[in-house]
């Protein structure tokens, strides 16, 4: 584990923002931190980066209690991010690197190689305000990376990115993971998380309501529902299953929900009997959005029961 938290609590005035957060973030993987706005993600990250202190609880980095030294092994791209407008791009990147105790030579080499990758070599000496928004975002991303962190924390990294830059960023995140960097990615955009993350935790109102490996979570939440592509007559409801329309770009595609303990074989036999031409059938994956909504509702239900 690159990072573990034990019973992290944080209160602002009378509001409990984080409530007993226990999380384990494995090395070399992408860990998704999901939750709606105001769930406590940013507060949690600020505790991990020692920007603020938790009221109680412990953070372990690489097995030992988190120290100031460990902070220099982290790279952090905050959700609220910016640059010194009047300062040269390379100069401020060097400044950020120096704040992370990076030797000058190493920082310069790192800046050069990232600037080449991001096509920023000819703007390194310009003040940041002369750069386009997309370029500035790339510079901000570089600022989190030039000291070659072991753990990279990205808070809503795609917010404000256009699709081209977002793809570029996505590719780089995956490349970093391939090079062994551990990454925490916080977002309220479920698709992003589904696309990138190996592990995730769902946070709502300061509590972890679901966590684990993405594949496992999806498997656990997948239901006995099937996407059917067909030709010929439209499938009809019957005693064993129900037909639902669902949101898909494909034509002639429906969702089949078998009633309890009806096997796929039985469904297929009946469909064939209806004269439906089966082109393709697959189990429907549970979307993170639906899992999330379900988990939140379940959590609320539990709380109500307690009350």
């Amino acid at each position, binding site marked *: 584990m690159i990072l573990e938290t034990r019973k992290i609590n944080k209160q602002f005035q009378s509001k409990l923002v984080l409530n007993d957060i226990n999380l384990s973030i494995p090395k070399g993987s992408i860990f998704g931190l999901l939750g709606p706005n105001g769930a406590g993600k940013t507060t949690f990250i600020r505790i991990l980066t020692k920007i603020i202190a938790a009221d109680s609880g412990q953070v372990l980095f690489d097995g030992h209690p988190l120290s100031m030294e460990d902070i220099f092994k982290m790279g952090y791209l905050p959700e609220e991010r910016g640059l*010194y407008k009047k300062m040269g791009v390379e100069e401020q990147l060097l400044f*950020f690197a120096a704040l992370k105790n990076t030797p000058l030579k190493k920082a310069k080499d790192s800046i050069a190689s990232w600037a080449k990758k991001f096509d920023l070599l000819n703007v390194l000496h310009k003040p940041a305000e002369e750069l386009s928004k997309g370029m500035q975002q790339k510079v901000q991303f570089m600022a989190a990376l030039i000291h070659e962190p072991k753990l990279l924390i990205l808070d809503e990294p795609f917010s404000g990115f256009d699709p081209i830059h977002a793809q570029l960023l996505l590719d780089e995140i995956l490349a970093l993971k391939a090079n062994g960097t551990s990454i925490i990615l916080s977002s309220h955009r479920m698709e992003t998380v589904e696309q990138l993350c190996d592990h995730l935790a769902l946070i709502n109102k300061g509590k972890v309501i679901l966590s684990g490996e993405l594949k496992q979570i999806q498997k656990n939440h997948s239901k006995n529902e099937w996407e059917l592509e067909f030709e010929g007559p439209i499938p009809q409801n019957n005693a064993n299953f129900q037909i639902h329309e669902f949101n898909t770009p494909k034509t002639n595609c429906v969702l089949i929900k078998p009633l309890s303990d009806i096997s796929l074989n039985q469904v297929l036999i009946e469909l064939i009997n209806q004269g439906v031409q089966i082109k393709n059938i697959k189990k429907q994956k549970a979307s993170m959005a639906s899992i999330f909504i379900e988990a939140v509702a379940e959590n609320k239900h539990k709380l109500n029961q307690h009350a």
Partner: protein
Amino acid sequence: MHKILLIAQREFLTRVRKKSFILMTLLSPLLILLFYGVIFYLNIKNQNPDQLRKVLVVDDIHYFKQTIPSEAAIAFDFGKLNKHQFEKELVNEHYDLILNVCKDKNGKAEFSLYSIENVGFMLKEQIARILSEQVQQTTLIENGIAPELIYNVKQMHIDLKSILIKDHNATANHSEMGALIGFILAFVIYIFIFLYGVQVMRGAIEEKSSRIVEILVSSVKATDLMYGKIIGIAAVGMTQFMIWIILGLGLMGPLSGLIGQLVDTSLTGTIQDNAQIQHLSQNIGMEWLNEVNLPLIFVLFICYFIGGYLFYGALFAAVGAAVDNDTDTQQFMMPITMPLVFSLIYSQSMIGTNPDGLLTSFLSMLPFTSPVIMMVRIPYGVPTIELVSSLLCLAAGFMLSVWFASKIYRVGLLSYGNKLTYKSFWKMFRQKE
């Protein structure tokens, strides 16, 4: 400490390299020189007006028994004229002014000055003085005093030395010169706190509004960020002052020659009496240098300068961290700048009046006002015990204000979009890390 220096270094370099810094550093002494040059020029010009004012005295009641002697810029003529002819006479520019002497209701002499343009305060006073002297002299002569005696009496002048007795030691006190030095130094402190304190605040706002601050605080503590900023900006100010001092010393030679020439040519016209010039030059001579303890003043100046800047700089930093943008700063700057402005105004009133007193002693202790107030008082001589306790209060004051500000800074930097009130400052202060 390493981080603080890094921050300070960045603050210093980015500011010093700005074109506006170089421009301001070079231009402001020139502007100040120009400013004083103009004042100086106008002063000399006032003493030597190019044009002679001609005054027609219409003495209806024969008040003046003798003619009135003309001075450098004013010439008196006697004549007879009707009141309704005054305007015509003035419009025709035969005379600039008409002085009418008549009787008022009670039978006393009444003097009125007629003109078609506004008469300046100085000119009016000058004419009044000439007339009064003339009347006094006439009265004296009429009472049998010899004119030579009157002349001799007028030349009498007493130089008053003030001597302070303390601990059985009597020391000559050149309080005028000391007061001037003190006030100039106090003014320097005032300007420095204002200019650079506001820069600390702006710096914090800039980092906050450009959203760079969270990147920074993920590698450096917010309080270190504040210390670095305050130190870096102080270094900018010091550099600026150093440049000014060097420029000043460099320009001193040629400039003093120039001023000397100016004074020479202008003074010879007005002051015929050599004794008067000698008297003048003695007054601004170097004698006071031996009496005023310059090294002490300098050391204390540095102490109050740094202490005052740290005290106020931290408060400005707190405001900068708490607000979201420049426009919100006004209401929160008020309570900070008020005591500063007050101390300058108060110290102005202190010059020439008694610098000791209960209120003054109190203000000399208060860190809000002591840097300015004490600087004015020091050349007059301040008891050591009072000096030491004032400095201790200032040290305690800036430690408190830095502590207070660092708490605000830490919380304020990361909070956006809140409606800010004085209560929210308190909340920020109370909030745990």
